[in-house]
């Protein structure tokens, strides 16, 4: 617990504005502190309430956010969480996601500043998903769920207001993406035939985790006809084999969002590890599918050990290592899966929610000490 009144005495820590929703929103928009949507004014009362779920000093940075390398203090994060409309009990998971994306392997600088259209995707695992009612089923990536929408939005506001992801100044994305408004889902563990993502990534079953991925938006994979695991995986592999993906040029970790119905069919014939091996081996296209310029200027030069003299039928793999493919079961009914390529120069990071004593937090309330 810290003294908010004392912290707000610091230079530029607060502003005095008329208590008028429209005036405040106009001001925030003018100063570039918003994502373009109306914000909830982060009054000291609201920020203090948000910080009821914070377990450390409110003014001490938990991370520095690229490209501005702004200090992500709980106080600043809380202001952005209020603006996004978060409930205070969302705060621990939101802080955890920020910490995860500030770890070096994630390359937040690259993800934020690149011309690519990636955004940090957050996949939540563990009982906390149910506790906070995070959607993992129908329309999990879409609108309609308070926790998905507002935690994801709070992350984006922090990326802008603390990290400096401001178009042309710190975010050079050629297009941007709708996922830059909010991009947070939970894995549908109840409908998954396999071990959850966090267990596969060597966390205990009872852990509550976030996995962050520097990701594109989901691309749908329709397969209403395949009755076998091999059939579904063949369709998915075919969708992954595209010429314009960053992932081809890196040791990338793209995400296969497997719809529960597809997952059930695949699991009849494949373990998760086997499914990944199948996808890696079959998600390939012949070198000749790439443009002449790409072949001559990139494949034959940058990847000369493999392609200097390779024929046009030489395989180019969508993913270099099978184990790098991230499979998460998400979504509701329907014969669909989705492919999420990445920025490429980024590694997925998973972090677990822990209590002050270093033990895994069983829930957000356990984290809070209640």
């Amino acid at each position: 617990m810290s003294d908010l009144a004392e912290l707000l005495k610091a230079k530029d820590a607060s502003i005095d504005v008329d208590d008028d929703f429209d005036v405040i929103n106009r001001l925030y928009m003018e100063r570039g502190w918003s994502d373009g949507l109306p914000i909830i004014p982060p009054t000291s009362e609201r920020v203090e309430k948000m910080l009821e779920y914070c377990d450390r000093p409110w003014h001490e940075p938990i991370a520095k956010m690229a490209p501005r390398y702004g200090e992500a203090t709980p106080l600043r994060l809380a202001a952005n969480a209020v603006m996004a409309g978060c409930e205070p009990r969302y705060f621990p998971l939101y802080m955890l996601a920020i910490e995860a994306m500030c770890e070096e392997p994630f390359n937040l600088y690259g993800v934020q500043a690149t011309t690519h259209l990636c955004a940090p995707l957050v996949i939540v695992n563990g009982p906390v998903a149910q506790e906070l009612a995070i959607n993992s089923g129908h329309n999990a990536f879409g609108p309609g769920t308070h926790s998905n929408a507002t935690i994801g939005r709070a992350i984006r506001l922090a990326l802008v207001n603390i990290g400096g992801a401001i178009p042309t100044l710190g975010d050079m994305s050629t297009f941007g993406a709708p996922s830059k408004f909010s991009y947070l889902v939970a894995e549908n563990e109840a409908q998954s035939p396999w071990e959850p993502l966090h267990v596969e990534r060597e966390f205990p079953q009872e852990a509550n985790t976030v996995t962050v991925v520097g990701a594109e938006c989901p691309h749908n994979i329709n397969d209403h006809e395949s009755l076998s695991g091999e059939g579904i995986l063949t369709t998915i592999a075919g969708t992954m084999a595209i010429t314009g993906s960053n992932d081809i040029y890196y040791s990338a970790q793209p995400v296969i969002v497997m719809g529960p119905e597809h997952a059930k069919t695949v699991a009849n014939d494949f373990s998760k590890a086997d499914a990944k091996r199948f996808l890696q081996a079959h998600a390939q296209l012949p070198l000749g599918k790439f443009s002449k310029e790409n072949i001559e200027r990139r494949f034959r030069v940058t990847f000369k050990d493999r392609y200097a003299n390779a024929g046009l039928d030489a395989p180019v793999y969508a993913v270099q290592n099978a184990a790098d493919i991230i499979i998460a079961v998400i979504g509701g009914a329907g014969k669909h899966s989705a492919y999420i390529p990445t920025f490429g120069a980024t590694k997925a990071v998973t972090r677990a929610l822990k209590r002050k004593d270093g033990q895994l937090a069983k829930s957000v309330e356990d984290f809070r000490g209640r």
Partner: protein
Amino acid sequence: MSELRKRGLTTAVICSDPFIKLGTTQAKVFGTPDLPLVKIPHPLGGLSLEQVEGRALVAVPQIVKLIEEHAK
């Protein structure tokens, strides 16, 4: 590059025009707001060798000037 600048070396970052604002912002972030930015035309991808040489011809005089100024 900012670290080298702080150590007193002649330094510069080469930016194509749309990246000048990013370069300026980053120079401030790293504590070297006076870090010289060598401006060349965009784009950089998909250039022929002749076009790459053209970019170099734009950059070289700016770099030479920086070195001369630094030597004074």
